[in-house]
């Protein structure tokens, strides 16, 4: 009963706390939006589009212009990609000598056009070289002992793998970010504004106080995580993930399954946030420690991949990072049974809350 009273008070307080709500909602709103923008930007870069125009800077070469135009490139005096050839290019070529050609441009923004110019010039150079050898009675194969033929089965596989991993990390990070300010405020904040002492002087058990606070933070955590996942997937349905080779399940069923998978972790993470808050001297300290803690999924998600992640089995966080690829990517990677993970994470949550209750009963918590 006391825990419920404290939960209701904390929840009302939380709904009026603009700082905590903004902090939680910012991740829910901006996290998926940032991924959507990145994905669409990457897809736009990868997409087959018409090449940017090019120009000769300095001397002109009708021969190269003909080759480049035939390869689908166009010339425009205002173009920013510039092909610089020596004045005597055609004379040197006719005499069987070599010539240096410079291609200048923004490799990050115009990579596909520059690569096209390079490959066209390399092919022209190779053809010309072969003709010169033939004219001297030497087969062109003498100069090319190896012919490499590459066939890519999926040119986006690595990029797709990284983006899929980022998506999973984004969702697993939600429980860490959503309730961070709320948990800090109802623990370290309470201590800082000196309202903890009057609260502890009531005939209420320390565990009831911890439970009430945890329930309030966890409610926000679960609601925010669900909103982040379901809203995020709805947003990503309009993304260009498919063009990058990622088949993401964006339906409500996938959203609800992912949310369900993250509920036990959210409860555990919120309990840990309450613990960190109770051990922090003030709100700022708590927020700093909790922000550091929030990056745990990102660190683990990039360090542990593939088999190492699968071997992590029942470890909290590692399980979620591995298991979320099931509902999101229809991956068949085996993971430990959900029921076991629920049992382990709930047991850990209870243990953390008991430790928090001991902390609340300790005299050290009242020291200034």
């Amino acid at each position, binding site marked *: 009963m*006391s825990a419920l009273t404290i939960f209701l008070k904390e929840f009302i307080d939380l709904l009026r706390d603009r700082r905590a709500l903004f902090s939680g909602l910012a991740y829910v709103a901006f996290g998926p939006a940032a991924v959507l923008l990145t994905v669409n930007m990457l897809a736009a870069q990868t997409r087959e589009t018409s090449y940017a125009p090019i120009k000769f800077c300095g001397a002109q070469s009708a021969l190269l212009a003909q080759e480049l135009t035939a390869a689908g490139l166009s010339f425009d005096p205002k173009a920013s990609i510039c092909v610089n050839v020596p004045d005597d290019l055609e004379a040197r070529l006719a005499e069987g000598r070599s010539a240096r050609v410079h291609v200048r441009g923004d490799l990050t923004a115009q990579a596909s056009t520059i690569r096209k110019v390079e490959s066209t010039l390399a092919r022209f150079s190779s053809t010309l070289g072969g003709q010169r050898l033939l004219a001297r009675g030497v087969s062109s194969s003498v100069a090319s002992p190896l012919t490499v033929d590459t066939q890519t089965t999926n040119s986006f596989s690595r990029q797709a793998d990284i983006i899929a991993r980022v998506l999973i990390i984004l969702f697993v990070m939600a429980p860490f970010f959503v309730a961070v300010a709320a948990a800090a405020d109802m623990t370290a904040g309470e201590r800082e504004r000196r309202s903890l002492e009057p609260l502890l002087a009531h005939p209420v058990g320390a565990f009831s106080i911890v439970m009430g606070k945890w329930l309030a933070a966890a409610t926000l955590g679960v609601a925010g995580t669900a909103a982040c996942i379901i809203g995020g997937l709805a947003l990503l349905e309009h993304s260009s993930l498919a063009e990058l080779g990622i088949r993401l399940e964006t339906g409500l069923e996938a959203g609800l399954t992912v949310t369900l998978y993250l509920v036990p972790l959210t409860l555990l993470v919120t309990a840990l946030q309450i613990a960190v808050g109770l051990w922090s001297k003030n709100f700022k300290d708590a927020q700093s420690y909790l922000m550091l803690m929030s990056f745990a999924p990102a660190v683990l998600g990039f360090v542990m991949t593939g088999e190492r992640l699968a071997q992590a089995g029942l470890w909290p966080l590692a399980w979620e990072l591995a298991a979320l690829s099931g509902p999101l990517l229809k991956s068949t990677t085996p993971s430990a049974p959900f029921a076991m993970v629920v049992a382990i994470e709930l047991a850990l949550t209870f243990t953390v809350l008991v430790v928090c209750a001991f902390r609340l009963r300790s005299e050290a918590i009242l020291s200034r």
Partner: protein
Amino acid sequence: MITGEGLRKRFGAVTAVDGFSFAAQDGAITTLLGGNGSGKTTTLRMIGGLIKPDAGSVVIDGADVSQARRRALSRLGMLHDEFGLYPRLTVVEHVRFAGQLYGLSGRKLSTAVEGAVDALGLHDIRNRFAAGLSHGQRMKTALARTIIHGPRNLVLDEPTRGLDVFSVRVLRELLKRFRADGVCLLMSSHAMAEVMELSDRLIVIDKGRLVAEGAPAEIIARGGGGDLEAAFLNLTGVAA
């Protein structure tokens, strides 16, 4: 009635309270008088069950705070020196929350909330958030929260500190009313005028030990006459 017997508390190398005993009777205002670091706040925290004595015991209406914490605290109302209000809760929400923590519900809770709001004259500001209250209004809100369950024992840690003359007057009248109702009042204070005006008994504490105990006139006499301030300084050895 609140009694403390052989209370001892150390924080590392510092002995805050050293074998201190006292008794605060029902229907009387007992004041703990002591300088900074004398052990007053530590004693009050032991009464409120916030810290445990290394030795000795505190008993409230027959319930030992260490052994029957909930029963003891349900008989006690405690006003803390910094009030500890929640900036985003209204005055009436504070009072209601405290009532619920004392186990009140339904009609009993509503009646108690209205009674506390009435007693402190909080009608005009009942729906205002604590963040916008003046110091006096904050004290009244905290006091309303303290008396919501009709405690038979009240502990007040420097209740008049920072209050304007109007708020002091309201508080003074309220404490006198509680005394007339037979409530045991134990407070700590630095304000000598308040102490003389309100106190039935004084307990002078210094370095965690009992220095003198008695009615204000007795303390003045034991301290060499004059006024309470001079007597207090004499008894604690500061005057020398």
